[in-house]
């Protein structure tokens, strides 16, 4: 069980799955750079969180609901939670762009569900991801695999933050190209991470060997 001041943001799980280094840069080193992608994501979120709670055909819709899980040590906010008549609880998360190959979005949604389950002592068997580019909902069942993935990511992020360790960069064109922290991270420079000293010595010798 975690204490309330040990909770980490649910968004950290997503960062971790995208790139552990990105997660450490944001949550350990607290470096934050906003690029177009994150800026657009925020505008979209502001829209989803905006507006009052409402009821539609007996479904109560709550926006920006704060949730936490002391078991997993997570805290965050649900974009939208629908409470259906008959007791079905359905979290919905809004995403810019389209479904991704990694499971970060599903993990985030499932983490919200696990928080809801703990707080409401209810079961939340599935949720929905809404992708802005496709303009449609995708149903996500929270199976045992996904739940394990959430728990494992939560443990990994807690370890990372406790140790204050930033994993080294592995440069990957596609991933790093879309990363908001590219300029801070400088993954290309880290190619030399075990050789910065050697590089400096060599370069110094080269510069000095130039004739006067």
């Amino acid at each position, binding site marked *: 069980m975690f204490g309330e001041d040990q909770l980490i943001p649910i968004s950290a799980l997503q960062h971790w799955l995208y790139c552990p280094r990105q997660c450490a840069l944001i949550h*350990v*080193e*607290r*470096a*934050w*750079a*906003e690029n177009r992608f994150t*800026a657009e994501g925020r505008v979209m979120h502001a829209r989803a969180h905006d507006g009052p709670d409402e009821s539609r055909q007996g479904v109560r819709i709550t926006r920006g609901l704060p949730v936490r899980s002391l078991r997993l040590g997570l805290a965050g906010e649900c974009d939208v939670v629908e409470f259906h008549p008959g007791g079905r609880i359905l979290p919905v998360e809004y995403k810019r762009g389209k479904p991704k190959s990694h499971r970060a979005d599903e993990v985030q949604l499932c983490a919200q569900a696990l928080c809801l389950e703990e707080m409401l002592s209810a079961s939340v068997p599935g949720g929905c991801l809404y992708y802005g580019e496709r303009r449609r909902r995708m149903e996500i069942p929270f199976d045992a695999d996904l739940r394990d993935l959430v728990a494992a990511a939560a443990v990994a992020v807690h370890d990372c933050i406790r140790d*204050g360790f*930033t994993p*080294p*960069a592995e440069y990957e064109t596609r991933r790093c190209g879309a990363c908001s922290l590219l300029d*801070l991270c*400088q993954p*290309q*420079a*880290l190619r*030399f*991470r*075990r*050789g*910065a*000293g050697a*590089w*400096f010595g060599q*370069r*110094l010798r080269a*510069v*000095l060997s*130039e004739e*006067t």
Partner: protein
Amino acid sequence: MKRHLNTLFVTLDGSYLRKDGAAVEIRHEGETKMRVPLHNLEGISCFGWDIGASAALMAACAEAGVSISFHTPHGKFLAATRGFTSGNILLRREQYRRADDEAASVAIAANMLAAKLANARQVLMRAARDHGGKSPERASALGQAADAIAVRIGLLGRAGTLDSLRGIEGDAASTYFSVFRHLLVNHDPLVRISGRSRRPPLDPVNALLSFLYVLLMHDCRSALESCGLDPQCGFLHRDRPGRPSLALDLMEEFRAFLADRVALTLLNRKQITFADFRTAESGAVLLKDDSRKQVLAAWQERKQDEIIHPFLDERVTLGLLPHLQARLLARHLRGDLDAYPAFLSK
């Protein structure tokens, strides 16, 4: 008003900066002069005594990580606004730990000084090549000094203490300044230099250099701030309250390559002449107010030149160099790099 390197320079006295949605709006005498989205900016630098900013803008800037700094019309730093210090506590702790550890400090400082001396040597060799044909005597003086500096660079690698590093650096610096006059071509005989004098500068060339070093120091200080390092805790320069020791450390590698070369260009092209200086009763020589503007303009211009960064192997503007080196230093402190790769010019 001008944008450069994602910094907005506001030079129009009487300007008022305010928040307009997600942008900064610059108003002057009731008119909107410019709007710039905040997310495109790293900093806003105001040069003038009568420039103001709204609290709402400062809050938005603090949140977006945009610094707002205020300078005199001549560029002297006055104050800056910022939000809460961001959570780089681990980085800062590591910085303090290393600064308390002499061997760790020596390792960083030795690279900084090696780069400083190598870059100074490059300036001498470049002049020897460019002007040497006309004056073999000058070329040989420059060449000898360059060789002497090369020897000192070799010694740096073997120095085990900060004091010995400082001694070696001091020797090399006096060698460098002893031939500095040979870098001035066809110059006004009144524009002279005899060794380095700082407090106060005792000749026009020293006055010009001192002014440029102040500009450079502020760039280094901002660069360190923006990547979460404490500009006051140095490795080579000792702590002294109020002294930006790490900024002084960082600027070493850029003195010759950035500041000295701007000074030489201005003097050799006669864009700055004896008439641009005045001598105070004490013998101190000062750059006149109007001339400072011209130096500032030349400095900004130089910062837009581009090179391939030797370590990153990327095309970058010179203005970005202090920022990139500050980041590399932070990377070294965090353990991503096994040494600090100081900037070595070609």
